[in-house]
């Protein structure tokens, strides 16, 4: 093989590689995004009959302006790395789908508290990252909020100085806003969930 022919074949292999890379990568991403739609989520009756059904009563489903938050908007991180991590975790959900852990409303109800606690813990850990994709404290108009809400929001996000260091109350959206898109579990007790003193994030 001559030197130029060698160069040529390397170039061709490289180009084919790039081409296939784009196809496979695009395919992978498209497939992953397909699992990131509401239609995909409620293709399982476990989701459609329980959590989706009750969510249709809430403001995140229907409201004055028609802006919606679908399942993945709140339950799947938007950033790529976090998203892939969540998707890998979701394989556990596939296992439970197959064994039918929550395949009746009764079974779902029996596990609701446990499942809800998973979500609460995650939201607390990530500082309610998925809420903040749409809601931003910086742009809240306190004049347009009810006085009760304005008061709480200011209190929760206030920055103060303690021992010379900048601090805040250490609160995040989920501390107060539990059960806004789905029903609260029967075991939930608001007296054990006072913002800042909640027992629901412990293990």
């Amino acid at each position, binding site marked *: 093989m001559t030197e130029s022919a060698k160069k040529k074949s390397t170039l061709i292999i490289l180009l084919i590689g790039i081409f296939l890379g784009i196809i496979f990568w695009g395919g992978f991403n498209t497939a992953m995004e397909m699992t990131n739609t509401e239609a995909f989520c409620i293709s399982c009756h476990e989701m459609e009959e329980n959590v989706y059904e009750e969510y249709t009563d809430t*403001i995140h489903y229907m409201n004055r302006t028609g802006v919606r938050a679908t399942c993945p908007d709140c339950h799947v991180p938007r950033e790529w790395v976090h998203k892939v991590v969540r998707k890998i975790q979701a394989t556990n959900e596939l296992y439970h789908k197959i064994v039918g852990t929550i395949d009746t409303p009764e079974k779902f109800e029996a596990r609701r508290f446990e499942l809800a606690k998973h979500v609460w813990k995650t939201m607390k850990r990530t500082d309610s990252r998925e809420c903040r994709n749409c809601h931003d404290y910086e742009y809240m108009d306190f004049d347009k909020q*009810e*006085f*009760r809400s304005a*008061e709480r929001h200011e209190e929760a996000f206030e920055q103060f100085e303690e021992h010379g260091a900048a601090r805040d109350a250490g609160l995040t959206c989920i501390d107060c806003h539990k*059960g*806004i898109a789905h*029903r*609260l*579990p*029967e075991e*939930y007790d*608001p*007296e054990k969930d*006072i*913002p800042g003193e909640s027992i629901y994030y412990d293990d």
Partner: protein
Amino acid sequence: MKTKLTTLTLSLIFGITGSSALFALESLRGDEPLTAESSRPDKFRQEVVEGGFDRSYEKQPPLIPHKIEKYHISLRQNGCLKCHSRKTAERENAKPTPESHFITRDGKRLNRLSTRRYFCNQCHVPQMNATPLVQNVFEGD
């Protein structure tokens, strides 16, 4: 013959009063024909009052001065207790559930809300900025 006459008279009387009653009747739709579009009812806003409403009479259950559409009361949960339970009320700057609400009809004190007090909005209601349809002449103590 006599029965025939009575029937005729009766049917005449009922016919006249019946038809006149028909003209006097006004349905909730008003005099509008059945095929017409009904007029839109007025929209009202719920009153939100900082500090709450004053009572109109001594034993009036306090009125709700804030929106309640997002708080649900069901067998599982009572959304009002998020702020109005005894432990959370002070922090949330809300009125706590009074002692009387923990007592059953047999006079027994419970650790939780008595079932006869569980459905808050049976007695406590929000207010709209609408004018009353019927004048209220009730006078309390």
